[in-house]
């Protein structure tokens, strides 16, 4: 299993464009936005915060949906389409381990991306370190689980790797929208904001844990539920070939 993770990690890193993008993009975007003076000045529009403070959760959302929906389903569906999983099924190692290796590597990338974002935000712009670290950890883990599980459902149900890529992109766009990545949440109608609190990866819980007091446990519970349901559907419907 260690070997599988090691090799999956090497493959992840070898795909530089995607791996660098996933890990660095949120921090780079924060740097770009923070370079605009208006966005690093507290404003009543942003609830008395600076724009960049209100946007950190959206940047975490980006990382989670990019990795969970742009990378994961494509890789898994390609493994199936190319017969990689079938090949592994003939060895003493169950092909599920390869998928587990994928999840581990992608999740480590998420963690690195979020840690880097924290560091850059704190050092460069004085964005507070997470107020509720445990809450943030829970929000990232559960939000990540929910998003990855949706990615796996797509990989399980899509007839081909191409279809998986297409479906995943639609869901990716939607979750980015509800997660306040395209338009900051304060600009979205309140009903959209409310929906965004409950769609993976749960932007509200991330924001509350980072710069509020604590995440609302109901938001976390919903993410847990999404992960459970989507994870079960993916496991039940997954085809190995």
């Amino acid at each position: 299993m260690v070997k599988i993770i090691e090799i999956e990690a090497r493959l992840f890193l070898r795909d530089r464009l995607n791996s660098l993008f996933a890990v660095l993009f949120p921090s780079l975007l924060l740097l770009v936005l923070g370079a605009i003076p208006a966005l690093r000045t507290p404003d009543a529009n942003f609830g008395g915060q600076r724009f960049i403070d209100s946007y950190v959760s959206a940047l975490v959302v980006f990382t989670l949906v990019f990795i969970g929906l742009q990378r994961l389903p494509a890789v898994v569906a390609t493994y199936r389409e190319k017969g990689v999983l079938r090949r592994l099924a003939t060895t003493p190692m169950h092909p599920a381990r390869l998928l587990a290796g994928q999840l581990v590597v992608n999740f480590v990338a998420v963690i690195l991306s979020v840690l880097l974002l924290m560091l850059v935000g704190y050092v460069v712009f004085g964005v507070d370190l997470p107020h509720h670290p445990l809450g943030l950890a829970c929000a990232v883990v559960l939000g990540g689980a929910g998003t990855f599980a949706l990615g796996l459902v797509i990989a399980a149900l899509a007839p081909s790797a191409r279809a998986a890529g297409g479906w995943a992109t639609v869901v990716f766009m939607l979750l980015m929208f509800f997660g306040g990545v395209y338009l900051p949440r304060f600009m979205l109608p309140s009903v959209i904001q409310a929906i965004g609190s409950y769609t993976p990866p749960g932007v509200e819980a991330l924001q509350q844990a980072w710069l509020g007091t604590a995440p609302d446990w109901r938001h976390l519970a919903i993410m847990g539920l999404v992960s459970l349901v989507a994870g079960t559907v993916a496991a039940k419907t997954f085809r190995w070939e």
Partner: protein
Amino acid sequence: MAIIEVRDLGKRYGPRVAVDSVSFEVAEGEIFGVLGPNGAGKTTTVECVSGLRAPDRGSVSVLGQRPADVRAAIGVQLQDSELPERMRVSEALELFSSFYPSPADWSERLGLTSHLRSEFGQLSGGLKQRLSIALALIGSPRVAILDELTTGLDPQARRDTWSVIEEVRAAGVTILLVTHFMEEAERLCDRVAVFRDGRIVALDTPSALVSRVDGATRVRFVPSVPLDVSLLEALPEVTSVSSVGEQLVVSGSENLVHAVTSLLARRQVVARRLRVDQVSLDDAYVELTGSRDGEDH
């Protein structure tokens, strides 16, 4: 003792019957060939033996157990199964070695050592095939299942691969070989099963299959003086006589040559441009399956 035992195997996909009551046994150390046109049930059968598919009917055992329970003892090379595009040859070998208790390195013998750093997606068809063979043998299996072993290899690489297979067998490994190439089956296999429409239509040694064909031996010659064809036809060894221009073509059983030459000697006829042909497994295969499908790869 039989190391692979297939009893009354049946498998269908929806309404289509892929394999219907197939039975055979493979002895330890044997190279057993599986021949037949595309769609005859070869791949389904070996998939059941490799533990990839559960039979609908009948039973399959390898080393006396269900194939799925002895995966470490079975090395499999599948048709059209690839590896991740960007995985290097060395990584594939490392990864697969980690699955087995006592891995064996065939990469040098298969000419892979100068390609260890190449990524799978950049390999030529022949190299992919050789890597796939190396991965099938990596676990020091007691049974190797090779599906379309040399498809995509050039003639030299094909011969090299055959000698690798002979080495593998010399090491005591039992081999189940699916092939389209009659030359390969004749060279490597101790016995072959010929599949057609999901059933085995013949199971024997390659030479026995050949001798089943009527007129397995063919003698061609130009008689020095005109010869009455009915004299030849009267010989019990002869099954048919035809003439092409002044040349006579006589087909018959194994003892044909002796019978024909004795007759000619008695009649004091000299056979000029005498040629003797033996029917090949190829001809036997065509006769058994009633098709030439699939062997022109």
